[in-house]
């Protein structure tokens, strides 16, 4: 399989992180009547490069260190901020994602954006540096949380010691509930991913459990149950239903055989490939059924492909059902 670079975490975060998580709160504000000399001290003491100008709780402009330098050059240092400030204010909403801020930085070529809430009140200020710092923090948080849960899951079989430890996951599957199709297999796939199974094995589990799940949805009168038993080396998936049962199991196993009605085939099911797909993905598969009673399907997949040959006893190979 080709190794493909994934969509980067940074790109995801830029779209997901709200601006309020990265902006500077407790913004130092100045009044329009502040003089440029006073402003110089405010910027120096607070170690900031600019400040919003607020008059009677209303945002009226923004003043930066650049404006201060220009005032110095022109000898206008005693002027009030009102005279030297920029009144063109570029704002972003605090609930917008960081990408909106990035777009505005590019579009307006400004050094800082004013962050406002829904009613237009100033709640923070945002610079390029804030975005970088916020993203780095979010990435390390995310990374740690995922690493920790992965680590814990991976070591569950080492941490909990018994002569034979296994983890049992049960999923109920409702009859004809196509809208939920694939939910149980998605959860199973996620569990295996957490446990650190190799991608090829996860793919085989995903395909076989999906086909088994869809069989319960399509065929079982009252739905059924998927029971996945996880052991350190092996996964056993069993599906059980209580009817209608399969009259001829051998026929059901043959490629292209399907009893699905037309409306189900129109949804793209009933290709007569489900059981064949399961068989192809499983290290061992057994289908037992009795017409009028119910069906039980057993699937065994070894979690470490290299261990298959050593641990597989004779006869535990893919085989035709009796």
């Amino acid at each position: 399989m080709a190794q493909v670079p994934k969509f980067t975490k940074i790109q995801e975060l830029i779209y997901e992180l709200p601006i309020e998580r990265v902006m500077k709160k407790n913004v130092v504000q100045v009044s329009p009547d502040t003089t440029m000399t006073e402003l110089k001290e405010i910027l120096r003491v607070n170690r900031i490069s600019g400040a919003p100008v607020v008059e009677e709780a209303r945002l009226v402009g923004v003043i930066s260190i650049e404006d201060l330098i220009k005032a110095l050059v022109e000898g206008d240092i005693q002027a009030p901020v009102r005279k030297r400030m920029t009144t063109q204010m570029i704002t972003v909403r605090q609930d917008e994602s960081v990408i909106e801020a990035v777009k505005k930085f590019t579009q307006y070529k400004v050094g800082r954006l004013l962050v406002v809430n829904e009613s237009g009140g100033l709640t923070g200020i945002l610079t390029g540096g804030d975005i970088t710092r916020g993203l780095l923090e979010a990435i390390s948080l995310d990374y740690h949380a995922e690493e920790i849960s992965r680590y814990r899951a991976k070591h569950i079989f080492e941490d909990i010691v018994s002569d034979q430890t296994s983890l049992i996951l049960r999923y109920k599957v409702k009859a004809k509930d196509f809208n939920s199709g694939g939910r149980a297999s998605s959860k199973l796939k996620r569990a295996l991913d957490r446990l650190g199974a190799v991608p090829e094995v996860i793919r085989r589990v995903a395909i076989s459990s999906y086909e088994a799940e869809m069989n319960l949805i399509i065929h079982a009168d009252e739905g059924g149950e998927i029971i996945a038993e996880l052991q350190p080396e092996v996964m056993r998936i069993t599906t059980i239903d209580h009817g209608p049962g399969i009259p001829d199991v051998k026929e059901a196993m043959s490629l292209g055989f399907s009893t699905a009605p037309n409306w189900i085939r129109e949804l793209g099911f009933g290709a007569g490939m489900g059981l064949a797909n399961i068989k192809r993905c499983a290290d061992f598969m057994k289908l037992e059924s009795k017409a009028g009673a119910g069906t039980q399907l057993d699937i065994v997949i070894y979690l470490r492909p290299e261990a298959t040959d050593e641990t597989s006893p004779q006869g535990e190979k893919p085989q035709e059902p009796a």
Partner: protein
Amino acid sequence: MISVKEIVEKLHLEAVSSTRSLDRPVAGGYASDLLSCVMKGAKKDDIWITLQSHVNVIAVASLIGLAAVIMTEGNRPDQETLNRAESEGVTLLLTPRTTYTVVGALNELGIKGNP
């Protein structure tokens, strides 16, 4: 490797869900309307071309980790399908053109099927 975004632009597709992951590269292509065939034949990071537009398409695409799904001949997913696609991070692309035409165009862009 060509990205989903380039395909969207070159084939004038309408991206309707999970449009954030359009930078994702596409490894190959697969076309079928039978879900079990897709489970068998499509590989991770492939783009899948189908007439189907119901919610199970999302389950299949997510389980095998497809880069995107193109729904052809003007078929549109319902709201439930769109919601599920969004929550599973599956990119859905729509086109009025037929599967045959779309596959031809993808081939010209260098996207090949699995041998």
